[in-house]
């Protein structure tokens, strides 16, 4: 019962924070509300027993997305971009009405669902043995529906290329992001020295644990990316130039490895086929490669296109 009340309160809170994020007068405030909202949703996921999703939501949905948005707000402020005035009430009313209708329709659809539909839980459980991993979510992600994940990692690559291609032509060959000037000895600099080893450890663990417990390449990669970003913000490391061969190898390595395994599978029974006896090792290999590339890609996404001249 307390659980139910907690859930109801959580739901209301989530809705309220979401509203605040949407309607907030101040953009920065909205983004902050959005980060809070992400954390609350992560909480909701744990309430639903989906710890993997909760981790992903917290790390990616709230964390990285929040960082991206905060960074963007800061850039716009620096660029002196003003906020537009809100739309007229009439238009707002119509928009609101139609959104309410849409939400209602979704609600109706939910209400009409068969409460006993079992989904694929049982099927996954049956095949878990052959997947080579103990975490059913990882099994789905990297084996049963590994093809989705392959495409997904490539999506990250597309976006990175897209972000880079938004650079000014004159900065091509330069390093991503603006140069960070952390105060020497400031908080950031201190954390920058202190945190990386821990973060690295945590990240590698999350990746490694992902095969049997909640976690995995995405969550782990995000942590690694965050670590690198922190260090970079501290001014301790700088991104290599976008034209650097090793940088490009890093971002491509994971997906390429995945693809190589997938194609190699053709000779072992079919595209993306992971023979059960080697599945675990293969998945761990893939996860390792992916984590590296994901970490690099996510970090570079946050850093943005090169905005500094080439050497």
């Amino acid at each position: 019962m307390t659980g139910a009340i907690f859930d109801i309160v959580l739901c209301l809170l989530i809705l309220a924070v979401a509203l605040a994020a949407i309607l907030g007068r101040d953009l920065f405030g909205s983004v902050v509300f959005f980060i809070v909202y992400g954390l609350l949703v992560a909480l909701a996921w744990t309430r639903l027993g989906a710890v993997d999703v909760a981790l992903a939501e917290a790390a990616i949905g709230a964390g990285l997305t929040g960082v991206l948005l905060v960074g963007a707000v800061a850039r716009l402020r620096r660029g002196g971009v003003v906020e537009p005035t809100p739309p007229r009430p009439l238009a707002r009313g119509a928009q609101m009405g139609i959104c309410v209708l849409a939400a209602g329709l979704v609600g109706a659809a939910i209400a009409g669902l068969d409460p006993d539909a079992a989904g694929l839980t049982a099927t996954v459980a049956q095949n878990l043995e052959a997947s080579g991993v103990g975490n059913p979510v990882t099994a789905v992600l990297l084996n049963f529906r590994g093809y989705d994940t392959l495409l997904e990692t490539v999506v990250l690559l597309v976006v990175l290329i897209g972000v880079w291609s938004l650079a000014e032509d004159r900065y091509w060959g330069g390093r991503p992001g603006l140069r960070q000037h952390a105060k020497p000895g400031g908080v950031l600099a201190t954390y920058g020295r202190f945190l990386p080893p821990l973060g690295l450890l945590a990240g590698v663990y999350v990746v490694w644990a992902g095969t049997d417990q909640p976690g995995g390449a995405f969550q782990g990669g995000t942590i690694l990316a965050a670590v690198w970003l922190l260090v970079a913000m501290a001014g301790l490391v700088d991104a290599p130039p976008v034209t650097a061969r090793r940088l490009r190898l890093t971002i491509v390595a994971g997906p390429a490895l995945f693809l190589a395994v997938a194609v190699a599978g053709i000779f072992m029974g079919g595209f993306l086929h992971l023979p059960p006896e080697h599945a675990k090792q293969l998945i761990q290999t893939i996860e390792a490669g992916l984590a590296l590339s994901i970490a690099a890609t996510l970090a570079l996404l946050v850093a943005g296109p090169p905005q500094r001249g080439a050497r």
Partner: protein
Amino acid sequence: MIVSGPLLPFAALALPLLLGLLAAVPAMRPRVLMLLPIAPLPALALALSGPTGEHTELPVLLLGVRLGLDATGAMFLGASALLWALAGVFATAYMRRTHKREVFVAFWCLTLTGNLGVFLARDAVTFYVSFTAVSLPAYLLIVHDATREALRAGRIYMILALVGETSLLVGLIIACAHADSLVISQVRDALADAPGREAALALMLIGLGIKAGLVPLHVWLPLAHPQAPTPASAVLSGAIVKAGIFGMLVLLPAGAGMANWSLALVAAGLGGAYFGIVAGLGQNGAKAALAYSTVSQMGLMIAAAGAAPLADAPAEFAAVIALYAVHHGLAKGALFMSVGVAGQVNGRARHALLAAVALLALSVAGLPLTGGAVAKTALKSGLEGPAATLVAASAAGTALLLLHVWVLLRRSSAHGSRPGRLLWAPFLAAGATALVLPWLLAPAVGVKASYVLSAANLWSATWPLLAAAAIAAAVIGLRIGVPRIPAGDLVVVAERMVPPAVSRRPAPSHPGPRRGMRRLDPIDRLERGLRRWSTAGPVLLGTAVVLAALFLA
């Protein structure tokens, strides 16, 4: 090309055509006029050999050409061929110095082919083609001198010829469609009870009447004949107009059913005969007056042709009309030639010329013992009651008119150059033939000399001449002025009423490219609206909702 039957009819048409083409060969140019007298010779030979009753067929030509000759046709053919030959001789001398002789010769030959073809044709298409071939190339003969007046005459001629051709074509088509045959005799018989008979007859008569100078379709005659070079005038008046009469003779069906048409034609013909006289007397030029004389004479023949369908023996009566046509053709041809001769002769020779002309004129008026008397008497024999009387009486008018012509001719001035024999000879030959030939032909058409020389007929031939003499004396004595009538009478009136030709519009100024795009501005506004996410988004979401609702419904 396969010809079946006698070759001569084919040759009669082919030779002039070939000679016409030959005229276009540059090497021929210096001697091109020499072709003219040769062209009609096969036709003449054919006419002299007389009707054979055989047909010549050329199945691949046109829609299947069929040629033949009967008694009537032979007379028309013979007289025409002779006149063409004589006029051709005349032309060799007369046209020696004009420009574009080769063109003249080519079209002369073409016209000749058509003219002969009309008489030889035994199928409707060949008849029509020949009729056209005589009509249109004649234009070139008329306008040969290319003077302003000639061109005007040519224009009017062309308009009428074209109307005539078209009418004839349509009339023939109606008749042929009913006959389901192209053979003229069958077409004619079928026409008697064809459904569109009245229209067909009317149209054919318009077509033939224009050619034959049927009043009021005659207007081209008095314009064209004076403007054409003299040899051309001679054949125009002597031979070409006969194509119309011949057409009436072969195309009008016989029988009581034709009574109304017959009456109408007789009336129109006689009316034309008298109108021609009156109008001719109002002319100042010899050729114009002669042209009106032709109108008048053709009126008589048309009246006769109109009476033919009701005659007891239409074929025989047709031959009689042919006889009249033979005389008139040769005489009128000679008279026109005389105008040409008169232009170049002075002194004694001129007196001789005037005497000969007077004799010819009297012959046309029917002076007893002349060929004209034979023709006229024969013609009257086929007519009854008032028509016969009116024909007889018209001789007085004819005499007066030709007297007028004679006077005009006498007054005309000459250019002094001595005319060669080549001008005299054809004139004399034509005149002599006109005086003599009817006598020779009369037995063949069932007219005996004794009948012609009977007292009654002599008297009926003589009194109009006496009356004419009396009137002439009175007019001259009292100095009564004859009102002048412009040549072409009705057409002159018409010309004043119709605005000068249909004016062509100036080159159309193309409208500029349309610039009406501005009116589409609402579309631009709509497009801008749809680009705005705050508009398009709700529309999109709304569509999703509506679609879902529709699926649910």
